């Protein structure tokens, strides 16, 4: 747990730098939207499991924030990828 926290913090920082560089260098293309959303999901999941401590609790409690992340980010992906004119 002790070492995990340092590693989790480092991974979160690295993924944040990656997201920032994509935005700052204007590299966000339609194919990279998926990459960015997956990286956001990983960051969120790391916060939920290791910082909030849900990795240590029963599945029925862990699954709610994970479902939230999955549903919200999937709907965002739908909104970005669905051809304009649909919906």
């Amino acid at each position: 747990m002790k070492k995990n926290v340092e590693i989790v913090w480092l991974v979160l920082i690295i993924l944040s730098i990656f997201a920032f560089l994509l935005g700052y260098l204007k590299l966000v293309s339609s194919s990279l939207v998926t990459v960015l959303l997956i990286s956001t999901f990983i960051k969120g999941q790391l916060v939920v499991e290791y910082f909030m401590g849900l990795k240590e609790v029963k599945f029925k409690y862990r699954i709610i924030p994970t479902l939230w992340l999955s549903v919200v980010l999937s709907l965002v992906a739908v909104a970005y990828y669905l051809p304009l004119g649909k919906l």
Partner: protein
Amino acid sequence: MSKALTLKRSYPPGDFAIWIVIYIELLTFGLFFVGYAFSRRLNVQMFNDSQLFLNKTAGFIDTLILITSSYFIVKAILSIKNSNENDIRISSSIASKWLLATMGFGGVFLVNKLLEFSDIFAHGFSLSTNTFFMFYLLLTMFHFMHVLLGTIIIYTIRQKTKRLGYTSADYSGMETGAVYWHLVDLLWIVLFALIYILR
């Protein structure tokens, strides 16, 4: 490893009531996030043009601040969790310093955000400028209020920590404040990617 150590906890960390609050907050922000993404479809060019006025570097610094402050509060909890009766004074002192660092970073986030808001308003943008700025200002100001509340909560937790109010047997109150702070962090992670980066 003994079987007892491998058993999962029955409930999430902290007071159960805070999880009700967290689920409500997730639902509220989730609706805003999805609303933003689908509203963008109605005028993609306007959203992309408006996004260029946002300070990505400030948003990135805010992200680093919140992630690191979340790490600090985990360290505060670990100090208390791993303490024993003999060293509770030292452990509380260490936890108190981690909490002070968390509050400090919370304060830096708030100042950074205020500077960002003042810059946006100085450019003449407001809630009624267009749909992008309506979502941007609503989401970031709503989130700002959460950081402010979280900082106040951590201040009260720190006061109790300084009075040796938490022990390895009873630190649920500290965990309650911490999970709220992590919620604020989690919401910002999604907000940053969605509003500042995705286009």
